[in-house]
């Protein structure tokens, strides 16, 4: 095991948690990500591989699916795999082995910061932040949109739990934007 110590996207040793009104905003650091993009002619093999990895049908556009490893759709013939970091630090290697050269797999664990919003009444917060139609944004939905000028993935885990993945080097700005939105809603 190497000797370097990781920090979170907000720069702390432990992830930050904020509580305001009914909403909890928590920074998450314990996740691994790998992007999977099918090669020419490799769509079917790639979807089969993702199915084996996630143990669930491959998510279509705007969707997320999976058990321990989950996948969400990021673009035509492209998906992102997500799993707990502790158990899946080598998610990238695992996916590379599984796709057997039919897809390009890219390590993305450190490319993104993640903030989870939990609580009743998330719509009021999200409507201040982005153009997603919250009335039909339900568990299993995942999409990319612009929040505070940052391209972010927004994943609906349950009606009271939303994850936002943003570019890691803008974690501070994104966190600030989320906090302001929560405070203005409640």
């Amino acid at each position, binding site marked *: *095991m*190497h*000797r*370097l*110590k*990781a*920090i*979170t*996207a907000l*720069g702390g040793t432990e992830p930050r948690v904020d509580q305001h009104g009914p909403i909890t905003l928590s920074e998450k*650091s314990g996740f691994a990500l790998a*992007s999977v*993009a099918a*090669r*020419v002619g490799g769509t079917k093999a790639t979807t089969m591989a993702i199915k084996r990895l996630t143990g669930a049908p491959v998510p279509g556009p705007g969707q997320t699916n999976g058990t321990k490893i989950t996948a969400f759709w990021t673009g035509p013939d*492209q998906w992102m795999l997500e799993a707990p970091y502790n158990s899946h630090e080598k998610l990238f290697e695992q996916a590379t082995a599984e796709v057997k050269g039919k*897809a*390009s797999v*890219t*390590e*993305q*664990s*450190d*490319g*993104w910061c993640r903030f989870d919003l939990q609580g009743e009444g998330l719509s009021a917060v999200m409507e201040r932040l982005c153009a997603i139609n919250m009335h039909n944004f339900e568990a299993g939905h995942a999409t990319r949109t612009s929040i505070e000028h940052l391209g972010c993935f927004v994943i609906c885990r349950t009606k009271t739990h939303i994850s936002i993945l943003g*570019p*890691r*080097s803008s974690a501070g700005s994104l966190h600030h934007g989320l906090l302001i939105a929560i405070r203005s809603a409640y």
Partner: protein
Amino acid sequence: MCKGLTSATFLNKIYCNAFGKLAVGKTRYGLMLREDGIAMDDGTAGRLAEDHFVVTTTTANAASVLRHMEFARQCLWPDLDVQLISTTEAWAQYAVAGPNARKLLEKVVDPEFDLSNEGFPFMACSNIKVCGGLRARLFRISFSGELAYEIAVPTRYGDAMIRELMQAGEEFEVVPYGTEALGVMRIEKGHAAGNELNGTTTALNLGMGKMVSKKKDSIGSILSEREGLKSEDALKLVGFKPVDPKNPVPAGSHLMTLGDPVDAAHDQGYVTSACYSPSLKCSIAIGYLKSGDARKGEIIRLVSPLTGFDHNVEVVSAHFVDPEGERLRA
């Protein structure tokens, strides 16, 4: 990040110079042109595997270059096997530069990797392990002109990595250097940056006219052939030194042939980037001069009526320090 079975073919279209035969484990300087032949961005691309390139851009252009490459991929060559994704955020990358750079890295990079000049020469690149097993990437590239490496670790370890490097470098008197120092060193080397890639300059202006390959189809190669962009007296990137070493060579000044009237009709070019060179102990600058490459040794008049400068400077090569690149290859 550019992957896929035909990613080399794709990069051959994106860069005006050849990329098809770049060996695995090697990095190459690449110049991207806009379709109108004007220089858009430059950087290096390293080939980590037959089907895997790491493309670097100027920091401020990362988003627009990805947009440009996506346009080429989806709209121009939709059936090439190439996949693009930004990995800018995923890696924390440090330049380790100076005569002791290798010695410093030997203390950080895991010992099974051969860091010797033979084992990992100038322009090499590789996946490596550092600090007892952490995945990392190493590129032997140099914007500063020194013996230099760029080492990348997953972003979450970036903070720990710079502490590690500073500690390991203590015995070599390592210091952090920022863009100000880098700006001086790249001018001493005559390396173009944003001031030179100003949206009107071509490969020819940059002194890289021969890099534009005529043997392949690349974006911008055809329109860079237009007569106005290839004229005899085209601007060329050169260096300037003051005749009186006490004088500065400020950026934004214009250049006049000795004896000519000082007006727009006789304008010979302009200074793009300037600094005080600690190596040469005087101010130096780079900039564009009409037929500049054929005028080395000429004394010309530098004028900046806006800021009150008017004195003579000598036209020299833009490579002020180590023109043979011996330091890079040491």
